[in-house]
């Protein structure tokens, strides 16, 4: 490969990941000047932005509505807490992070399994996810033996990533900041890769015109199930990190408040973009922290109004405002040079279809 080609590739890669680079730089600067409490807040915001990503992949990219994303947050938190408690020998942290993600996938697939079949009512997924989150909240608050009931589980230890000969034990919550930043940036890059892959384009196509995708021979139900599973894993990871950071797991993690907030973060940041929800989560959590004490209810009400307005007036999110600018970029052949239909809008598809219905000319 020529030097010029390599430069071009590097520049292209840099352009693709520009938001990750900017986010990293921004977080490094913030981390340099923030005090410990601010670091704690930004860490929790970073962790929760994983939940926003999980909602965004489902709602923003695939057009399926999981109204109980907090179910995975709570599941992850409790699983982490219980795993840390039960497997106290050695260094259970790796297991305590892996297990929630596995369980998140299992729960997501189990819940979603009947949801995406062609004849199931589309509200089923929204409702069953909401119901599952409410029931888990209720169940954890009554089963004292396992989950500590409504008191929750307290005193959850900080993660200990020590390996033989390598001491990586966390001793204070400030050390959580680099971990959460690294996880979020990794998750962001992973999602970026996912949505720009062939599979990601199928997802967007499902969002825009499900029947057409099915007609073209893709398994719509399969793709949706995979997205639900990935989102489940992300949500559970967020929960595990959240529990590790704040040191407690309580039933309200399953609550509607977290689910609604996740939707607001995505709506404000722009559904169908990846960096938007992350930045919105950080900004709104910092804002919430400033406004704390003014009125929690008032804050949530304002968020709800913003959310309703976004749903009514910006169906494609804030990103939709700039879509005309970026549209040209998304209509590019993928890496292998295969020509894939444009991901935004259905203009070309409509053109291509026209001869089939016999109404042209």
């Amino acid at each position, binding site marked *: 490969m020529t030097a010029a080609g390599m430069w071009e590739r590097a520049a292209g890669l840099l352009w693709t990941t520009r938001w990750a680079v900017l986010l990293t730089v921004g977080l490094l600067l913030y981390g340099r000047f923030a005090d410990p409490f601010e670091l704690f807040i930004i860490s929790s915001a970073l962790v929760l932005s994983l939940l926003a990503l999980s909602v965004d992949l489902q709602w923003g990219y695939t057009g399926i509505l999981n109204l109980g994303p907090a179910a995975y947050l709570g599941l992850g938190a409790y699983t982490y807490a219980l795993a840390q408690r039960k497997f106290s020998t050695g260094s259970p942290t790796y297991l305590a992070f892996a297990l929630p993600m596995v369980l998140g996938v299992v729960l997501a697939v189990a819940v979603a399994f009947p949801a995406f079949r062609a004849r199931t009512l589309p509200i089923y997924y*929204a409702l*069953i996810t909401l119901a599952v989150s409410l029931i888990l909240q209720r169940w954890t608050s009554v089963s004292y033996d396992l989950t500590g009931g409504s008191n929750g589980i307290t005193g959850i230890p900080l993660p200990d990533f020590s390996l033989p000969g390598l001491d990586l034990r966390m001793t204070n919550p400030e050390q959580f900041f680099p971990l959460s930043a690294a996880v979020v940036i990794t998750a962001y890059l992973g999602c970026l890769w996912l949505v720009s892959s062939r599979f990601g384009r199928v997802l967007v196509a499902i969002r825009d015109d499900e029947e057409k995708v099915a007609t073209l021979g893709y398994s719509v139900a399969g793709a949706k199930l995979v997205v639900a599973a990935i989102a489940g894993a992300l949500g559970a990871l967020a929960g595990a990190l959240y529990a590790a950071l704040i040191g407690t797991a309580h039933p309200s993690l399953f609550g509607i408040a977290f689910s609604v907030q996740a939707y607001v973060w995505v709506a404000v940041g722009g559904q169908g973009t990846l960096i938007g929800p992350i930045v919105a989560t950080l900004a709104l959590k910092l804002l919430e922290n400033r406004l704390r004490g003014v009125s929690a209810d008032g804050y949530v009400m304002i968020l709800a109004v913003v959310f309703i307005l976004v749903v009514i007036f910006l169906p494609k999110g804030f990103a939709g405002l700039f879509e005309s600018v970026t549209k040209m970029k998304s209509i590019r052949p993928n890496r292998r040079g295969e020509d894939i239909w444009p991901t935004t809008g259905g203009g070309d598809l409509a053109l291509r279809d026209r001869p089939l219905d016999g109404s042209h000319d």
Partner: protein
Amino acid sequence: MFGGLGDNIHSPPLLSFKMEEGVRHTVNLLAVVNTGLLLKQVFNAVSSVTLLALVAMGLFIIFGMMKVINMAHGEFFMLGAYTMWWLLERGVNFWLNLVAAAVVLGVFGVVVERTIIQRLYARGDLSTLLATFGLGILLQRGVAMMFGDRPQFVSSPISGGPTILGNTYPTYQIVATILAIVTIVAVVLLFLRTDFGLRARATIVNPAMAAALGVDTSRMNALSFALGSALAGFAGALASPFVSVVPAMGLDWVVRSFLVVIVAGVGSIGAAIGGAAIVGGWEAGFTAIRDATYAQITVLVIVWVLVLLRPRGLFAGKLRRRPRLPVSPFPPSPGLTGEGGRE
């Protein structure tokens, strides 16, 4: 969370002394066989089912007619209960408040329909679900900001009640159940026997055709949304003496009513009653034997299985005479059959 009527009604345990878990459940099972208790449980189940059917029916009208998924329906129920409480505090008669709650929520429904829902019809996707989800939270937190999160107390207008086979049946619960049944019958008759009902059913089956035949579908939509909201408000006011009136109470009801819709399917107004009988009846029965949390977990499992077996719902398609055939890619050949290619 998620507790229905059952929670409060069943609060005294069937057996008051403590035993080992396993033994207790077995004894509970045996105790239910006791005729008096069985009768009481059946009564509780019926009263719980009728109330759920009332709420679900409101949802059903909105969902069936407009294909609008109103996630704020539970909050409309909550607002009905709060209307009752607020007016009672100001000394207004209880029975008058029942009507007032229905009227207030009916008007509120029209406002919501005209400001939010109407803008989202054309999209035909799940955006009404999202918008009303946001609206529900807005209403819930708004009420919490005004009146606080603590439970409000609505005393029932009639105290006491007859004692049959050693169990007391609160008169108000009996009256409320009868009122709910009367309302349900009235709504069914409204749909089956009146001109409005005919137009409404026409809009449900085929909005485009109904519009072509001169039905003002936009007005039908507003009216049906108002009717659905009014039913939720009425049910909330009716239930207020035996549920705890808190801002978050609506969430349980909207989920349970939607489970009813999912189990029953969309298609006929009677499906709401059948679905409510399954969901509410199972919940009440299981709550009596075990407890409310496990009752709801099992309800979810049942719904999950039913959705696998009957994705369109148990009573789907009852409104149509013929099952809907898949759309043929070939143009109908009018000469073959009288009905354009279909049997």
